[in-house]
């Protein structure tokens, strides 16, 4: 710099002025551009000495700014170092894409050092989407033709890592040529490149075929290994190639044989095994070639047996080979002896101290257990041991395998182990494990007592992680096995009396059963002595415990109500507890509280019959048909206020029957019932007397039932007369309720049946519904017990669509009785929003009288429905017209509409 200044001094004054300016510029320049860029290792030191993330960012940003500047200056001297630094910065996770172009420049440099960094940068910074690919293709082409093998190697390596379809097409020719190169170092890299190219552009496969085949006659293991990989990929990609390469099976067998027979070769020895990597690759290719091909499998049988017996298994390398051998044996059509040998190898793996080997063994056993169950059974005890492994992955596999191994002979021992496992398992295992336990117990239980015991243990062991279906399966099992109910209820009482109240499922099962079978508990059948006061005490504890969920309390409250018909002295305290719930904060519980209190006061005479024991749930357990069965318990549209229907389901069922009894009528309806083939499972008294032999076989399967429904409909169609009035009870008022119950027309029963079936089709449960219907089915569509199937009225008058706009559809069907037309309106929410506050108002000409019944609900979930009954008295038979006004809330805003319905079918007044 001084030199520069000196020389400036000798210049003329004009020049000096100019050069002063130049000097200024230079100073500025010097400030930003340090003459010597710092070295990579200094940068790394600086970054490592940064104490905070902010400090590190500052260092990196400063350096990046500097590197950008040098890039802009086209500084080719330091480019190499700067890119190297940039790659380090990239590795730390900072953006470095501005270096892409510099990498290309380095690649274009004639120096190997530059190329090496350039190609590394290209591999790290470029990906398939970059436009720079066009630019790099040229450089690659040049370097692939270079005379230096390492330059060729760099180009191949880069191409193998980042080739795009376009690059693949452009450079496939070069790669194919290099695949035939005399240099093994180049050949092996070209093979991997070819692999990448056919992955990107499968059409190019043909082109590589001749060169690929010759790769197998190689001596060099690197070329062999890449060649085998390339062939494997070709076989996987194209069935033609697979067929073509079938003929190389003997070659592969020979190579493998040489590998295992050859003595020690220092070059390829890995812990005493000759090139395990190549062996693994060949075994894998053999598996693909032999899959489903008995000839090819035949050719490999011997060598696979040799590998399986001759490989030393004390080290990981040996086991890696054995593992691949086992996989190949299981995948090809191998001899049965060989398969047993393979499974025994896996059994040995399970005893291995190395957890990785245990892991792959379990994985493989899981894959083959269905094909060779008996062979796997022999290693059952070892697999059970793995349930106790410290490694969660191994435990998970072992659990799955255990369930696959359970059969009728070993269920007792297996279940014992699995229950121990379940008890100590991680929460994420408990749900699956308990569900699987239930399934297994159902399939293989030696007897019912054991089955009940097991389910109770499962519920207990899984704590709060029990899925709903396990709770319902347990309840169902107890409900349907009369002989064991006393035992079960005794066991459950024992659980409940010491329960910690934090595990809901167990309390739910217990309260349900004690509610149903509480009398067995008290009359000493249950092998425990219980005081009534104890029971009340426990229930009070549950009902007021803060740890208990609302659902549990719903169970408990209904159960307690049921107990009021089973206990003798404590009914008063039950009434007290129940009525206290009339002011509970939870609306569901509150409603139950009020309703149940009514049963103590105004309708005390109905309480006993109403709280009869539930009919047992019979039929298929643990699958979708439960919903249907639940539907059976939901009887009669006797109660239909939107919320309580689900609750009263189980109550109303006996109620209905009882009323039928009390009126002592019904030869007709009994006859009908008979006709219906016992669609009602054995329940209330007189009806049962008639139908009890016919159990609910039909109910077990939905299909035949619908045909029965059709029968009912036919019956109705034949007998349309008196059905109308009883069909239309829409009030919750108990007065009316009993009134309709007492109406002694056969239609009542039919009505019940029909509603029954319709409610099963729109399976609905809410809150306590799960009590009466142990289903796992908790869709909370608003129920409607009231859907009258359209086909019902079809024989007489066709229905109409009264309204279909704004996501609301109103269908009307009609029934005529003398001058009264009953319109059954079915509103469907066709929008995606929840509809609330649904209100339908109607007006008719003065000569007609209109009576609107309460709708079955005022809210609808998306695609749910509600029903409302409208009765029109038309004594003078004038044409029916109706003005209507609709309003509802959806998405927080009120929708209103009005209109006139004038397209009623003339049949209504003619």
């Amino acid at each position, binding site marked *: 710099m001084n030199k520069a200044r000196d020389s400036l001094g000798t210049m003329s004054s004009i020049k000096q002025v100019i050069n002063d300016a130049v000097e200024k510029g230079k100073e500025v320049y010097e400030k930003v551009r340090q003459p010597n860029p710092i070295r*990579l290792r200094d940068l*790394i030191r600086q970054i490592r000495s940064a104490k905070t993330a902010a400090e590190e960012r500052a260092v990196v940003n400063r350096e990046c700014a500097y590197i950008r500047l040098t890039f802009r200056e086209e500084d080719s001297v330091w480019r190499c*170092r700067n890119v190297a630094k940039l790659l380090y910065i990239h590795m730390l996770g900072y953006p470095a894409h501005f270096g892409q172009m510099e990498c290309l420049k380095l690649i274009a440099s004639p120096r*190997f*050092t530059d190329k090496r*960094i350039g190609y590394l940068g290209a591999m790290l910074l470029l990906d398939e989407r970059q436009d720079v690919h066009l630019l790099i293709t040229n450089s690659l082409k040049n370097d692939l033709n270079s005379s230096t093998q390492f330059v060729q190697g760099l180009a191949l390596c880069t191409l193998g890592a980042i080739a795009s379809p376009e690059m693949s097409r452009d450079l496939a020719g070069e790669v194919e040529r290099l695949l035939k190169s005399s240099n093994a170092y180049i050949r092996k890299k070209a093979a991997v490149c070819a692999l990448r190219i056919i992955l990107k552009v499968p059409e190019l496969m043909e082109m590589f075929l001749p060169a690929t085949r010759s790769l197998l006659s190689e001596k060099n293991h690197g070329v062999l290994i890449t060649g085998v990989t390339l062939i494997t990929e070709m076989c996987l990609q194209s069935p033609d190639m697979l067929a073509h390469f079938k003929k190389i099976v003997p070659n592969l067998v020979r190579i493998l044989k040489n590998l295992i027979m050859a003595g020690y070769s220092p070059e390829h020895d890995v812990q005493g095994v000759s090139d395990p990597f190549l062996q693994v690759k060949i075994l894998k290719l053999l598996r693909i070639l032999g899959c489903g091909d008995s000839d090819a499998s035949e050719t490999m049988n011997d060598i696979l047996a040799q590998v399986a017996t001759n490989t030393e298994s004390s080290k990981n390398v040996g086991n890696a080979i054995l593992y691949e051998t086992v996989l190949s044996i299981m995948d090809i059509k191998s001899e049965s002896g060989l398969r047993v040998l393979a499974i025994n190898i896996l059994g040995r793996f399970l005893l291995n101290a190395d957890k990785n080997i245990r*892991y*792959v063994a379990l994985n493989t056993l899981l894959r083959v257990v269905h094909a060779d169950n008996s062979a796997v059974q022999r290693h059952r005890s070892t697999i059970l041991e793995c349930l106790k492994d410290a490694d969660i992955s191994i435990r998970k596999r072992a659990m799955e395998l255990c369930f696959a191994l359970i059969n009728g002979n070993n269920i007792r021992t297996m279940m014992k182990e699995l229950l121990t496992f379940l008890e100590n398992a991680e929460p994420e295992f408990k749900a699956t494990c308990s569900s699987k336990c239930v399934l297994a117990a159902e399939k293989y239980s030696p007897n019912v007592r054991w089955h009940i015991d097991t389910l109770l243990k499962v519920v207990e062991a899984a704590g709060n992680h029990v899925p709903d279906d396990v709770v319902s399966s347990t309840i169902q099992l107890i409900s349907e096995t009369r002989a064991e109910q006393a035992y079960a209820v005794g066991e459950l009482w024992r659980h409940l009396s010491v329960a910690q109240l934090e595990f809901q499922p167990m309390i739910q099962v217990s309260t349900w059963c004690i509610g149903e079978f509480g009398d067995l508990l008290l009359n000493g059948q249950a092998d425990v002595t219980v005081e009534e006061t104890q029971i009340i005490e426990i229930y009070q504890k549950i009902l007021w415990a803060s740890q208990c969920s609302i659902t549990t309390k719903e169970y408990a409250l209904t159960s307690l109500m049921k107990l009021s018909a089973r206990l003798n002295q404590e009914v008063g305290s039950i009434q007290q507890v129940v009525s206290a719930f009339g002011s509970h904060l939870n609306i569901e519980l509150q409603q139950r509280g009020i309703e149940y209190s009514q049963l103590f006061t105004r309708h005390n005479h109905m309480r006993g019959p109403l709280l009869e024991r539930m009919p047992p749930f019979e039929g298929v357990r643990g699958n979708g048909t439960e919903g249907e069965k639940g539907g059976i318990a939901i009887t009669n549209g006797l109660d239909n206020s939107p919320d309580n229907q689900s609750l009263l389901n189980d109550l109303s069922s006996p109620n209905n029957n009882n009323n039928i009894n009390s009126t002592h009528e019904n030869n007709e309806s009994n006859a009908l019932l008979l006709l219906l083939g016992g669609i009602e499972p054995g329940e209330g008294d007189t009806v049962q007397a008639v139908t009890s032999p016919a159990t609910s076989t039909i109910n077990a399967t939905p299909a035949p039932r619908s045909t029965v429904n059709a029968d009912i409909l036919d019956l109705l169609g034949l007998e349309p007369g008196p059905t109308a009035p009883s069909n239309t009870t829409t009030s919750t008022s108990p007065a009316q309720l009993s009134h309709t119950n007492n109406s002694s027309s056969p239609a009542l029963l039919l009505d019940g049946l029909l509603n029954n079936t319709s409610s099963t089709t729109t399976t609905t449960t809410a809150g306590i519904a799960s009590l009466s219907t142990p289903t796992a089915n908790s869709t909370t569509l608003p129920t409607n017990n009231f859907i009258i199937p359209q086909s019902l009225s079809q024989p007489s008058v066709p229905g109409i669509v009264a309204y279909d706009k704004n996501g609301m559809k109103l269908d009307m069907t009609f029934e005529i009785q003398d001058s009264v037309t009953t319109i059954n309106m079915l509103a469907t929410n066709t929008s995606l929003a929840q509809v609330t506050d649904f209100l339908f108002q109607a007006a008719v000409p003065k000569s007609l009288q209109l009576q609107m019944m309460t709708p079955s609900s005022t809210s609808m979930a998306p695609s749910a429905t509600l029903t409302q009954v409208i009765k029109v008295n038309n004594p003078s038979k004038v044409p029916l017209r109706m003005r209507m006004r609709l309003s509802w809330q959806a998405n927080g805003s009120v929708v209103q509409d009005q209109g006139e319905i004038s397209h009623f079918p003339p049949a209504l007044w003619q």
Partner: protein
Amino acid sequence: MASHTLHQLQNEEMQQQIIKETFQLVSKRDDNVCNFLEGGSLIGGADYKLIYRHYATLYFVFCVDSSESELGILDLIQVFVETLDKCFENVCELDLIFHVDKVHYILNELVMGGMVLETNMTEIITRIDDQNKLEKQEAGLAAAPARAVSAVKNMNLPQQIKDIKLPDLPAAIKDLKF
């Protein structure tokens, strides 16, 4: 401290995230559990596995699909580490940090485009040595400063300034187009 070698992962933005999560997963694992981690959504789903080996303060993590043998990959990691050990003479984490480029070069001789290329350690080391010699002949990276000094000496600074203001466009384009 962890050294990660991830292959076949294209998305640049995701890489850091993957590395971070992988490290969190792997570093928490006990030594007596298996060395396989089954694919989360992050690494491409159920077909992918993380296979790692733990050496003192270093984790070597490979991400592989189901076409690779799990146990085989464990051996491959062993070969990689032994090769590093030979190339760096008693490799330690600082070697890997300060010579990231060299680690990449070694890895590129072992694995290429996600496929096993060569497992013979002697062969790998020979090739690496040969290439390093080639660099030395060119007075590789380390010698660059010496050349730079002479370049600075010969620099005509006013000319240099002009260059900044008016970069040599044809030359730049030539470089680009190469």
